[in-house]
């Protein structure tokens, strides 16, 4: 009986530590999530960034990376450009 209590207790303690640490360290840029919502979300990787999340991070560094997205339709790309301009991720000097 004591074995069950000890093992469960220790496992629970370590689980809590990991959850708290994860929550503390995973404060991401909120813009990544917003950009991800504008991407198709297939995680196909044909852009070369591995996943839509990788693409979103790449867009933050170089806004026009979204042109590399293959499944995205032309209208969606125009929408994306507008969204990025709104959020000032595409700066006017970039043109």
């Amino acid at each position, binding site marked *: 009986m*004591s*074995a069950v209590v000890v*093992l469960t207790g*220790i*496992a629970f303690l*370590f689980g809590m*530590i990991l959850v708290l*640490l994860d929550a503390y360290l995973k404060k991401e840029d909120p813009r990544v999530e917003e950009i991800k919502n504008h991407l198709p979300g297939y995680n196909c990787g044909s852009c070369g960034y591995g996943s839509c999340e990788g693409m979103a991070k790449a867009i933050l560094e170089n806004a026009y990376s979204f042109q590399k997205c293959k499944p995205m339709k032309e209208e969606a790309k125009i929408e994306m450009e507008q969204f990025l301009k709104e959020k000032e991720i595409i700066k006017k000097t970039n043109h």
Partner: protein
Amino acid sequence: MNLWNLFFFSFLTENIVLTRFLGICPFIGTTKSTKNAWSMGIAVTLVIMCSSILTYFLYYGVLVPTDTTYLKTIVFILVIACLVQSMELIIKKYFPKVEKSLGIYLPLITTNCAVLGVVLLNISNHFTFLEAMIFSIGSSMGFVFVSILFASIREYLDTKNVPEWMKGTPIAFVIASIMTLIFSTLGGAL
């Protein structure tokens, strides 16, 4: 056994990699360059130190009083897994380049038997806390030392004319066996 002897014993003559044959996987896998060997060595050292402190107190503070010492293996694995996961989170956040260069070998420290070996040896040899610390420092430094040595030899060999069929891992295995021969004779020197 005095502390200096214990350190020397765990560092060289009973080297964790070359005479106990623990932790061979990262020893072969992450020694393609000295830079990788350094970062892997530091990561393993951190995990060994933290886990031997934690497991020592868990064993004598929780497991012995509740008479559940037969749980030590699974509890120690829990401690090591938790430590490696938290270290991976920290490295991912602050050193993304290290994370990329080590790749799968970083979460695989969990199953690195060198770590579990050191913490179990601490308990089975009935070390005091100070002795356990010295033994862990010696063993992890032994791991780093041997990895760096091995990585430098492999880097040097990259510039040499190795036969096509021996290039890469095969020649590395031969070097590892020669190093083992050298290290096994060191025990007689003391």
